[in-house]
């Protein structure tokens, strides 16, 4: 899947770039973005270290397990393949809480920790499991209940009007994500064996 989309995006870009006369900009973007990607990754090191350290404390003190147990009724339905008291569930719950509260900085390290723990349960290390796809889809659909600070700054007084609309829209997209994942994971072309 990603093979075709990745190649398709680049191929379309080059063709469109030639048509629109922006082929120089396409070249610049390719070179520039490769640098940006490294800068973003390196920039993550500090914040990753901070939250992974705090998470380790939360884990060692048993806090993660308490949280995981509390939300068992929900997580067991979303992630039926993951044992309910597995540390991954704790990290998933913390990641979602951070996302809901708009704490993007904390959400990414917590999410990557969850991915690492889900990977421990994965028999085929290069292929996403059902639980991983579910977790990712919930993350990409965003579960934010607080309007992002950047939007508040931009919208000024009107920001309070979009508080409810944002919650409803995000609910719609998250529910869609969950339904889509559950439907598609049963399809043969998306099975682990045929994965691409």
């Amino acid at each position, binding site marked *: *899947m990603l093979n075709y989309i990745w190649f398709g995006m680049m191929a379309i870009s080059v063709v469109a770039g030639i*048509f629109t006369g922006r082929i120089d900009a396409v070249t610049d973007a390719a070179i520039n973005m490769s640098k940006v990607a490294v800068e973003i990754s390196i920039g993550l090191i500090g914040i990753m270290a901070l939250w992974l350290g*705090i998470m380790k404390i939360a884990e060692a003190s048993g806090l993660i397990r308490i949280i995981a147990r509390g939300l068992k009724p929900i997580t067991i339905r979303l992630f039926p393949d993951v044992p309910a008291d597995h540390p991954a569930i704790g990290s998933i719950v913390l990641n979602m809480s951070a996302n809901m509260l708009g704490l993007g900085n904390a959400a990414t390290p917590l999410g990557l920790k969850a991915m690492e723990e889900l990977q421990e349960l994965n028999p085929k290390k290069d292929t996403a499991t059902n639980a991983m796809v579910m977790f990712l889809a919930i993350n990409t659909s965003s579960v934010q209940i607080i309007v992002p600070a950047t939007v508040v700054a931009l919208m000024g007084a009107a920001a309070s009007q979009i508080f409810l609309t944002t919650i409803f*829209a995000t609910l719609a997209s998250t529910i869609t994500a969950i339904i889509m994942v559950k439907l598609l994971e049963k399809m043969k072309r998306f099975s682990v064996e045929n994965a691409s």
Partner: protein
Amino acid sequence: MIESIVGSLNAGSKYIIPLLLVGIPMYAITIRKVKVYEVFVEGAKDGFTIAVRIIPYLVAILVAVGMFRASGALDLLLNFLAPALSLIGFPPENLPLAMMRPLSGSGSLGLLTDLVNEHGADSLYAKIGATMFGSSETTFYVLAVYFGSVGLTRSRHALIAGLTADAVGALSAVYICKLMLG
């Protein structure tokens, strides 16, 4: 009512991180007698490896997204889609943001800023745009970072599910805003 809820949520959110940074070690050291400093350092070690592991995946995705944005392919697609979407009540003004949102966080914030500057924060376009922005994530980036961090290359149905959810989110933003604020 809503103003006060929003106000207190936003005011409260700035205390969450400091409270977590102190609260978690406090619980650990007082109730569980965890050696918090040693355990913290142990966990923090992984920060470097994970961040470095992401690099190739992020380069692949961001380069493709960057080329796509720079090529003007999005504009061509917009011209093609706008008439069809306006038939179902989707304002052409909000289409660029809807299409940019899964591709780039900074790009979509730029488009939202344009909407606010051009039509004003009180306009329905700006409110729809802000709702779209707040209710979705940069799908391609999240996929690269999350799956890249553990070395996954076969993403199965993740992208299709994510993009469908983005599309439904964008459509919902339009209809919900029209219904509640229009």
